[in-house]
C-alpha cells in the first residue's frame, strides 16, 4: 500500500508536539508561547489525518475533525492576541513571568 509506515507519521507528530511542549513551557515571550501551542495543535491534526487514512477504519471523519480543530485554534489565537495586547497596554510587558495579577 504505502511505503511510509503509520508510525513514521505518528513519530513526526510526536516530535513536533514535544518541540511545542518544550517551547510553551520554557519561553518567556507570550507570543512565542501562543505559537508553541499552535505547533502542538498542528501535531494533533497530523495524527487525526493519519488515522483518517491509515487507521483501522478509514473514513473522512478524521479530516472533518481536523477542520474543526483548525477553526477552534484560529478563534483561540484571536482571543489570545487580544488578551495579550490588552495586558500589554495595562502592564507594558509581554513577559509571561510578570503576568501575575491573579496571584494576589
Amino acid at each position, binding site marked *: 500500500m504505502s*511505503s511510509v509506515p503509520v508510525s513514521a507519521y505518528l513519530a513526526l507528530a510526536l516530535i513536533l508536539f514535544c518541540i511545542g511542549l518544550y517551547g510553551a513551557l520554557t519561553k518567556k515571550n507570550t507570543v*512565542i508561547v501562543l*505559537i508553541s501551542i499552535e505547533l502542538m495543535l498542528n501535531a494533533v491534526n497530523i495524527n487525526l489525518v493519519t488515522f483518517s487514512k491509515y*487507521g483501522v477504519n478509514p473514513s473522512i471523519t478524521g*479530516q472533518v475533525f481536523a*477542520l474543526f480543530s483548525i*477553526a477552534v485554534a484560529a478563534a483561540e489565537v484571536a482571543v489570545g492576541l487580544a488578551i495579550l495586547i490588552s495586558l*500589554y497596554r495595562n502592564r507594558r510587558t509581554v513577559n509571561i513571568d510578570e503576568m501575575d495579577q491573579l496571584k494576589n
Partner: protein
Amino acid sequence: MTLTGEFFAFMSLALVAVIGGVLLLNLTKVIHMVVALVFTFVSIAGIYVLLSAEFLAVIQVMIYSGAITIMMLFGIMLTRHHGDEAEPKGGILRKLALLLGVIGFGAAVYFGIYDLNFEAVPNTLHENNTEQIGVSLFSHYIIPFELTSVILLAALVGAIVLARRDDDKEGDQE
C-alpha cells in the same frame, strides 16, 4: 520500507518541519521565530497532501501560513520587546528538568507507537476529497459546524472588546 517517491517526499517534508520547529526554539529574535514556523506549517500542508487530504492542505496554507502568522506578526509589532529576552541565570536547572521531562514524555509515547501498523484497508479518500468533506460536514456534522460558527462569532466579538482602546483611561499614556 522501500525507497519510493512517497518516502522521499515524506522524509524531506518531515525534515523541514522538524528543522523549523528546532529553529523556533533556538532563534533569538521573535520575528525570526515566526518565519521559521511558516516553514513548519507549509511542510505540514505537504504532509496532508501525502495523506490524501488536499482540502486540509489548502486550509493549512491559508489559515496557518497566512492568517495566523500575520496575526502573530501584528501581536509582535504592537508590543515592544526589550533586549531580546536575556536568559536568567537560575533558569538552566529548570530548563534541564523540563527538557528531561519532555524527552521522557516523548520516549513513553514513542514506545507505544514505534511498531504500530494496521492492516491496509483500501479507501477512497483521495477521490473528490473536498466533496466528501462537504457531504460529511453537512449531513453528519451539521450541529458541530453551526456551533463552530457560534464560537467564531463569540471569538470575534470578544477579541474586539478586549483589544479595544479605552479612550478616557489610556489616552494619556500613548
